């Protein structure tokens, strides 16, 4: 089954080969061709800037905690606040993408949270510190717009790669900031000569400006879909302006979205937790100095350069041969191994052993994140944004849960907390066994006979809506997603002239 090339274009020609939805079927990393590759670079850079802002405080904590007279509890609470804001923000962002388009949704959120970063400069108390970290953390919802945008611009055969690279290179910000902020701080403190307590404040201008500039870049240079922005497409009738309640309903009634929200909490959520606690772990358990602990912490986040994209690419590669079932199996295996490595990390007592296990663990847990978003674009077409938002939000819920259960107070030592977190990862990953796509199958069961992609995606629209032609994009998507059957499924039924396709949950 070939993906049909668009031969009857009345509109623009694209720099890259496209499918019937005008989504690019190739991914060329070093191109900035509009609109596909440009969208990619805009989204990963802006997401990177949000990560830098959200985790700008941790590397400077030794100075901030003295300036603001913070206790360890204050610091812990601020860390939890930084990741909890995004739980609902991500779901809201998903909805906003479905309704207003990723360009407006993400640039708006980034501009809305920029004041929180600017106001960090004048924080003067533990309460103020908590508030600025909480509101800055909302910006992590740009993850959802990143994934949504990539799923709108890139065809199913490269969507895993696009999602993995944009998500991974954005997450890189969490590691890069551990190196950037101390550098900027020392430039201001040593070279310009400001006092310590002024220098850290001035240093925050850097992430704040970076974030603001990326919002402008998205607004002026970006575009929602290959054919244009939502506003224009809706006016010309090419895109139907969807109803919020319908979009929301079809997202929350799709059980697969909930399953991936849970499992994402145990790959991405775990990654966020580790970002917050790993420097202290190495500092306390192995008595390395703060500078070294910071470098180790940074290397965990920097592995995102290749590990999360690797997961996305792996998802696409496996799908060529084995389709969706291959994507699911790979996700399950990689995340299980990640859990096992986490369990091991807490048990190792030597510094070099711990660093080695941590690095391998980082690769697996981040690859699992990439693999998750190789599956997400296929769960729903109509409610892609909300599903992405739910999954992303689930990631943050996982981060809050693991920090509250295992890393707060002195109930567990940090090493025990890490091992127990590994056990929890493995238990929660088991639910992937329950995911089943009628047209493609699940981990253990094959596809149901006679069911097509159209049956699945068109069941999200009512007959009345279909009569008005609102479901066109789902039709195109169904055709393009045929390759998720893998090589074996090529001879499976195509849509015939069925009157009423059955509804699938």
């Amino acid at each position, binding site marked *: 089954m070939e993906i049909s090339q668009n031969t009857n274009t009345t509109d623009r020609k694209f720099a890259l080969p496209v499918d019937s939805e005008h989504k690019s079927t190739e991914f060329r990393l070093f191109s900035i061709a509009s609109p596909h590759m440009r969208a990619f670079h805009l989204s990963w850079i802006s997401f990177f800037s949000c990560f830098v802002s959200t985790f700008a405080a941790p590397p400077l904590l030794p100075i901030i905690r003295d300036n603001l007279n913070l206790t360890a509890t204050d610091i812990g609470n601020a860390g939890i606040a930084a990741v909890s804001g995004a739980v609902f923000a991500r779901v809201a962002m998903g909805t906003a993408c479905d309704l207003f388009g990723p360009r407006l949704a993400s640039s708006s959120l980034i501009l809305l949270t920029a*004041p929180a970063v600017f106001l960090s400069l004048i924080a003067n108390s533990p309460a103020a510190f908590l508030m600025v970290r909480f509101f800055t953390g909302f910006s992590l919802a740009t993850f959802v717009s990143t994934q949504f945008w990539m799923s709108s611009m890139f065809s199913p055969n490269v969507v895993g790669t696009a999602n993995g690279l944009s998500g991974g290179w954005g997450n890189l910000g969490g590691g890069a900031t551990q190196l950037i902020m101390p550098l900027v701080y020392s430039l201001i403190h040593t070279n310009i000569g400001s006092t310590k307590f002024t220098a850290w404040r001035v240093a925050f201008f850097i992430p704040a400006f970076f974030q*603001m500039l990326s919002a402008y870049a998205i607004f002026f240079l970006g575009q929602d879909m290959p054919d244009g922005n939502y506003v224009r497409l809706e006016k010309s009738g090419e895109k139907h302006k969807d109803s919020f309640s319908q979009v929301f309903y079809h997202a929350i009634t799709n059980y697969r979205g909930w399953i991936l929200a849970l499992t994402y909490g145990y790959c991405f959520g775990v990654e966020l937790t580790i970002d917050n606690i790993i420097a202290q772990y190495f500092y306390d358990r192995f008595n390395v100095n703060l500078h070294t602990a910071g470098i180790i912490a940074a290397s965990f986040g920097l592995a995102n350069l290749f590990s999360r994209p690797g997961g996305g690419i792996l998802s696409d590669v496996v799908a060529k041969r084995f389709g969706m079932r291959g994507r699911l199996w790979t996700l399950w295996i990689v995340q299980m191994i990640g859990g096992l490595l986490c369990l091991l990390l807490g048990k190792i007592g030597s510094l070099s052993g711990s660093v080695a296990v941590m690095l391998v663990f980082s690769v697996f847990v981040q690859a699992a994140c990439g693999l998750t978003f190789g599956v997400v674009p296929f769960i729903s077409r109509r409610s892609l944004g909300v599903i992405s938002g739910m999954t992303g939000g689930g990631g943050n819920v996982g981060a809050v849960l693991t920090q509250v259960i295992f890393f707060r107070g002195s109930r567990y030592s940090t090493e025990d907390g890490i091992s127990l977190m590994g056990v929890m990862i493995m238990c929660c990953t088991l639910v992937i066994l329950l995911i089943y796509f009628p047209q493609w199958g699940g981990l253990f069961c094959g596809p149901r006979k006679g069911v097509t992609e159209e049956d699945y995606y068109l069941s999200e629209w009512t007959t009345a809506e279909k009569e008005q032609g609102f479901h066109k994009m789902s039709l195109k998507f169904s055709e393009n997603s045929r390759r998720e059957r893998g090589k074996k499924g090529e001879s499976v039924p195509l849509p015939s002239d069925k009157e009423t396709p059955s509804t699938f949950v």
Partner: protein
Amino acid sequence: MRSFLLEVSLLLLFLLKTTNGDVLFSSLPRSFFVVASPIEGQVLKAGEDNITVSFGLNQTVTNQTDESYKKVKVKLCYAPISQVDRKWRKTNDNLKKDKTCQFTIYDKPYERNVEGFKWDIEKDIPTATYFVRSYVYNDVDEEMAYGQTTNEKKSDSLFKIQGISGRHVSIDIASACFSVFALLSLVGFFIIEKRQSKVKS
């Protein structure tokens, strides 16, 4: 059995440390007296006020020989109340790992009769409750004796220092202006979008 093993290992660790050459605070004699100008509960301002400190051999301790004393350091130390829930200021008997006294305000070779000195409180001293302690070192830089302004429990003659905020009017203004600018830009975005949609219809 477990607690026995714990005790044995603690004892071994203790012995190991003393044989290792790590100096323990509990092993030091309080051979010095230290007097500092702040009175109990006084609040001093960093970057503005100063402390006058005088110190010398504690006359009440007999049989002292100060031949091995080579260097004196006077330090500003956190009182217990400022160490609560702050592991980075924790007191540890092993002086190599102790984090109670993080600021050195005087560091000179030892002389028998020293007049007091005045120290201007620097701008990077954080808001906290403090006392003053002096250490005397031998020629291989090991602590030999100490003195401090407070008692053993570190509960009296404590004083407070109010640190600077680090904020300047210029920073406050810049931060507020850019925040407003960001929000205004957002409004601008929406206006532009509305215009675009009107143009198309």
